[in-house]
């Protein structure tokens, strides 16, 4: 009987700790912070000519206060399936609504413009500086005459940047 009471008390206390911890973890250390910040929007403006539209000097910053982490890997990808890497009308995953050429990115270890048709690693185990890492990158969109006669409207792509701290 006494053993059962002990078991009951331990279970109740354990449950209370689990419920209480996320709200006020007063006796535990704060969990480490991991952050990645990329530009919210990159705008090429109006596509009016057959040319390469380019945006340079873009910055990605990463940070952690986790003292056990000293390196970082950063990749970028387009998560669409049918039109991976392409700007599309309204961002739709529809081949009929995509530009002729994929978006290109360069920066970090990607030394020349490369299409985002597959995942691109911009940083591979780069050294953190006091938990910080900063990266310049550029994007380029080649517009053809065929593109200029495509359905009018806003063409866009959503890039997902991911940082892996090690």
């Amino acid at each position, binding site marked *: 009987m006494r053993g059962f009471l002990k078991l009951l008390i331990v279970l109740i206390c354990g449950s209370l700790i689990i419920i209480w911890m996320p709200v006020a973890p007063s006796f535990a250390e704060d969990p480490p912070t991991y952050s990645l910040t990329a530009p919210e929007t990159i705008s090429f403006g109006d596509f009016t000519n057959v040319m390469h539209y380019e945006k340079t000097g873009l910055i990605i910053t990463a940070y952690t206060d986790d003292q056990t982490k000293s390196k970082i890997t950063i990749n970028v990808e387009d998560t669409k399936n049918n039109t991976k890497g392409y700007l599309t009308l309204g961002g739709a995953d529809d081949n009929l609504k995509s530009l002729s050429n994929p978006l290109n990115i360069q920066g970090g270890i990607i030394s020349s413009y490369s299409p985002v048709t597959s995942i691109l690693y911009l940083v591979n185990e780069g050294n953190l500086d006091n938990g910080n890492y900063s990266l310049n990158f550029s994007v380029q969109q080649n517009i053809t005459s065929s593109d200029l006669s495509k359905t009018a409207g806003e063409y*866009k792509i959503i890039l997902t940047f991911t940082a892996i701290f090690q």
Partner: protein
Amino acid sequence: MTKRRLIIIAALAALAALLAIPAVVMGDPTDITTVRGTIGATYSLTSPDTISLGNFESTNNYDSSNQNIDAYTNDAQKNQVTIVVSDSKTSTRGFMTLNGNDQIPKLANALSVKGGAVNTYSPLTSNQTLASNQNLISGSYTINDFSVRQTITSDDLSKTAGTYSITLTFTATFN
């Protein structure tokens, strides 16, 4: 299994659940960027640069048939087109004149056109509507039977020699 062992297992389970909480907070951070650019709406209408009826040497109807008039837009908001052909001269409206001036000498008869919604040759002394609210297909509409006719009289053959011309203005209205 003894009660003591049960107590230890229960305590370990509670501890494991407790340790799992920070793991939910941790992870590989991501951020998203929207890259955008805009293709503006364009509207175009294409007609022949020149339609030549050759030399007027006899009293006859001089025809040039089945020319193409192409209208196009990439504006997804537009689904119909109206196409009108006109002569913008005032004094000699619809007539071929020497060097295209808006003055005499002009030919005896007005230039006639047909095509699209205009089934029979009609004089260009007034605007001619070749297409009225016709449906666009992928933004395009084509009139492939645009034709012109100039009737030459014996009186015309004795007029001042030279090139008689008229400038046709095609207008497309997308809606």
